[in-house]
């Protein structure tokens, strides 16, 4: 029997997301899925969920959610201040909500995309092999206040809660050469590595625009190249030489030249950069890029190993009664 997650308030760009729809490139549909796949998979790890599970993606602004049934949940990604029935809850950890509890998630203090995963998983209908909203694919829609998102029951509400230490490395974003890198002169490639970019306010799940001081990035000859495949992470130079880093919902093909491809492991730091934040890039070889590649399964397994039990001082736990301290199912005491 499904239960509901009631959306009482929500930002304008929040949606149900999963890890996308691989296998549709032949039909012109990019994979899509969570804009920050690492943060999304962190949420899966915290709740022992499989890779196919869907959650809620919030962009810049949070939302207010009411749990219709007792449910563990996890918050990951952008640092959004969250409270559960008025009590502070951390990002990067799993938590327990009693039936009727209200989770209030504020605007992001840092980062852009945050994820709310629920232990039962979101069970909206699967369309074309996925549950996620895909804007240019015309699949799904953004969440609205008043939505009741169907959720499967928590299979193991008594599971101990965990958290993950968040890595804080912030070097230059690594990119690898792509099919059109050779169209740019060595000087231009050097200038690209030397430039300090600032994320433009124009950004969405399709891509983010970058601004910088200095010469535009144009190709050696304005040849009329035939439209060809685009990869998630490609840095595309539009007609006037403005770089865009393409994200999950990008087009599958395009005619603008691309200077390189941001490594999937580094793409979250671009997606999570806020307007005005600085970004730098550094080329790595194809071999280095391949060595840094990590499959979703592998990442999920390593994150599960990195989980730390949450030790909370019982005196700080106002929802103590909702824990299964004496073997009663939490439903019996939920709602007091």
């Amino acid at each position, binding site marked *: 029997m499904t239960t509901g997650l009631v959306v009482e308030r929500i930002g304008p760009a929040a949606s149900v997301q999963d890890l996308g729809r*691989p296998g549709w*490139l032949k*039909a012109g549909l990019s994979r899509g899925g969570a804009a920050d796949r690492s943060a999304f998979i962190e949420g899966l790890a915290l709740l022992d969920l499989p890779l196919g599970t869907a959650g809620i993606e919030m962009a810049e602004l949070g939302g207010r959610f009411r749990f219709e049934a007792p449910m563990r949940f996890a918050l990951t990604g952008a640092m959004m201040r969250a409270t559960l029935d008025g009590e502070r809850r951390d990002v990067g950890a799993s938590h327990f909500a009693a039936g009727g509890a209200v989770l209030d998630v504020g605007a992001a203090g840092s980062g852009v995309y945050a994820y709310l995963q629920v232990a039962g998983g979101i069970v909206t209908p699967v369309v074309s092999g996925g549950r996620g909203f895909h804007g240019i694919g015309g699949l799904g829609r953004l969440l609205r206040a008043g939505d009741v998102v169907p959720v499967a029951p928590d299979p193991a509400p008594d599971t101990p809660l965990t958290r993950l230490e968040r890595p804080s490395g912030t070097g230059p974003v690594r990119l690898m050469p792509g*099919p059109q890198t050779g169209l740019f002169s060595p000087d231009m490639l050097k200038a690209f590595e030397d430039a300090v970019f600032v994320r433009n306010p124009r950004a969405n799940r399709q891509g983010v625009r970058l601004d910088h001081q200095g010469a535009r990035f144009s190709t050696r000859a304005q040849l009329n190249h*035939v439209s*060809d495949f685009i990869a998630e992470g490609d840095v595309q130079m539009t007609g006037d030489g403005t770089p865009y880093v393409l994200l999950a919902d990008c087009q599958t093909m395009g005619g603008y030249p691309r200077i390189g*491809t941001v490594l999937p492991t580094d793409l979250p730091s671009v997606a999570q950069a806020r307007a005005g934040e600085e970004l730098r890039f550094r080329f790595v070889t*194809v071999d280095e*890029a391949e060595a840094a*590649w990590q499959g979703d399964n592998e990442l999920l397994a390593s994150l599960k190993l990195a989980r730390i039990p949450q030790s909370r001082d019982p005196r700080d736990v106002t929802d103590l009664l909702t824990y299964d301290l004496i073997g009663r199912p939490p439903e019996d005491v939920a709602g007091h």
Partner: protein
Amino acid sequence: MTDAPELLPLGPDGLLVRFADQLSEPANRAALAFRAGLEDIGNPGIAETASSLASVLVKFRPDVLARKALEDELGSMLAERDWLEAPLPAGRRLWRVPVALGGAHGPDLEAAADAAGIAPEAAVEDISAARLRILALGFSPGQPYLGFLPEHWDIPRQVDVTQEVPRGAVVVAVRQVIPFANAAPTGWRQVGRTAFRCNDPGHDPSIPLRPGDEMEFLPVEGRTLDRLLEDASPHGGAERFEIP
């Protein structure tokens, strides 16, 4: 145009087999045939393949298949035959799609005919007589790039982008025709409109076309098209035939 197919990296888990860096019919045929050949092999290290106008994208699993091994495999497959001479793959379909050309549904027909150096009537004739191939699906999901119109249709994109053409707008440029999957801005010229849905999440499969399929446009009156748009009939009144 480069003489040999090139193998190029596209992301840490992608390899692009590029048959030409310009639009060409043999290169498109090569891409279709090469992708079909790859699918037949069914290498478990290959996650997915797709063909574009003149290239094939191979997405692979770097934890199962090393790039070097995949390059070797693709290289020997490329050497097996002259792919530019390959016949079209089997299992293709012909779509006969009703389209209203000119008038309110094709505001740029005259300008397009003018650019092609022919009369509007001749333009209608060319577009209705052409048997076009789906060179690739892309830009928007399910949206076909169709080619090729006769050589005098090698007309450039417009300098000024049309802010929005509706879903089903039939646009032309550079010897190609595209029926738009969704309302979108375009630099191409709108010569007509169809009720054909390139991507209809309400249907299974949501994306009816496949690269290599062929399409013919069956001219209809503007009124007939209005009715087809209203009825929202499956595939906008188009008929589908298997190509033997």
